[in-house]
């Protein structure tokens, strides 16, 4: 009952445990984690295939690159479906499920929180306020890097995949506009490739921050990603 009351706000007093991340949010998180690794590896290999020396012999009996591609396509489909499910959950889920899709930029308190958080990470402030869900800095990073990055990588990815169809047919009917918008398929390919690095950069910082917060911060982080419950540590000083 206290969730609604304090959701997204700076906590006024000591509250022990709050159920923040509902099951679909956590499920999406871990599906995405599991899919991103093979997607990045196979995607890199599609962009820069290993030398043929590793796949010598008669082409009739070898299917290495095709397997790399089909793994990439399959994981991409699962990644996309999980993302769509997550979007749906942002609409029907609890307050926190909207955190990273709709940062409350209209709230003055949120901007203040963003400033405090940035100052805290720059070691210019001793403490940042506690947040039940994501802090404002995390929200804006997840929105700008992960959510927007995912949208771009999904659209460009499907546009590249769609090239197996004629213009106006199949997936090309749905995603051909991406080739038109970017003027040419090579630009779509390059953007898709750059987005992989963009999401990897996000993941690096994200993972670092998760561990840092879990060790140094006042709230639980890693455990929360598993059971959804945010625990607030008792004040040490």
């Amino acid at each position, binding site marked *: 009952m206290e969730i609604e009351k304090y959701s997204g706000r700076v906590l006024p007093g000591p509250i022990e445990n709050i159920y923040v991340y509902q099951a679909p949010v956590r499920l999406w998180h871990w599906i995405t984690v599991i899919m991103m690794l093979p997607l990045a590896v196979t995607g890199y290999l599609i962009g820069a295939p290993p030398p043929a020396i590793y796949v010598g012999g008669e082409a009739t009996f070898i299917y290495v690159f095709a397997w790399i591609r089909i793994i990439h396509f399959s994981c991409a489909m699962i990644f996309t479906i999980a993302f769509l499910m997550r979007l749906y959950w942002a609409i029907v889920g609890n307050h926190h499920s909207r955190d990273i899709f709709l940062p409350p930029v209209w709230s003055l308190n949120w901007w203040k929180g963003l400033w405090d958080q940035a100052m805290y990470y720059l070691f210019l402030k001793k403490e940042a306020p506690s947040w039940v869900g994501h802090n404002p800095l995390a929200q804006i990073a997840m929105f700008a890097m992960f959510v927007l990055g995912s949208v771009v990588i999904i659209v460009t990815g499907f546009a590249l995949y769609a090239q197996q169809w004629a213009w*106006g047919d199949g997936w090309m009917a749905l995603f051909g506009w991406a080739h038109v918008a970017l003027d040419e398929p090579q630009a779509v390919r390059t953007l898709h490739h750059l987005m992989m690095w963009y999401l990897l950069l996000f993941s690096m910082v994200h993972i670092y921050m998760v561990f840092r917060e879990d060790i140094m911060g006042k709230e639980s982080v890693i455990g929360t990603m598993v059971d959804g419950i945010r625990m607030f540590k008792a004040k040490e000083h």
Partner: protein
Amino acid sequence: MSETYYELFRRQGISRRSFLQFCSLTAASLGLSEVGAQEIAQALQTKERVPVIWLHGLECTCCTEAFIRSSHPLAKDVVLSMISLDYDDTIMAAAGHQAEEHLERTIEKYKGRYILAVEGNASVADDGVYCIPNGKPFIEKLRHVAKDCHAVISWGSCAAWGCVQAAKPNPSGAEPVHKSLRGLGKTIIKVPGCPPIPEVMTAIITFMITYERLPQLDLQGRPKMFYSQRIHDKCYRRPHFDAGQFAEKFDDDGARMGYCLYKLGCKGPTTYNACSTVRWNDGLSFPIQSGHGCIGCSEDNFWDKGSFYEHLPTILPPGWGGIESTADKVGLTAAAVTGAAIAAHAAASVVKQARSKSSNDKLATKE
């Protein structure tokens, strides 16, 4: 009624046997069955010939060259018979005023029924002074002839997309035919390629005569029967792609063994055309078969799409990270910088943690 195609072919000395061969070949290239070949033969023997006016704008004549280099005498005769009878300023016998008079007569005689094939495009910068046939800007001639035509075939990449003269910075203001004919409401069939495949031309005209309708076009305005698949999808080197066997250099063992040219910048995976099935010079070969990657000549604006020989294009302007700053190099650099920043931040955090602990301890002892 004026003569049929069959009468025309016979008059030019083409045997009935060769005529039927042509019908089968065309039916096959259109993806039709044997019945289709019979329907084509029937149509070409009974229906009136469709007049074609062939105009040349800014172009290199490689489209016409592709026609007349066709090694098979039948194909060449048929193509030339089908397209150049009425007006083609490059290969017609008449010249000068005589030719222009003939053009006007053809427009008058076949009003609303002739097909306009355009090779090359119009220049619109500086009032079109960069292309002046018969003392007038080409765009005027183009619009004049297009006004009364049945349909337009944008023949070649110049007409379809703009090609080299429309490449950046496009000083002569060359523009594709569909832009020049804006507002006329004509169906424009694009047959891009630099040059396009000659058989596509005859197949389209044959299709239009036989079935009395225009071929189905894709979203970009190209006939679906020839432009619905990529070079890559029907490439004879595709097994090497699926196997992961790529030539690294044009003179390595992979290149000698006919491996896939993907890493050498082959544009087959992004190019819609029929080269890998119809091929060139009577099915003799096509660029990839000769050991060179596809340059994507039938795609819009292919001159401005970076190097023909790079798989991952250079993405930063010159002076930013060297000449080979591909997405991977930029990404790796950014990852390294981020990694270093994370390490520095982590170190600072540890120091901070230790400090606050020791100050806490001090506070505790004081209390």
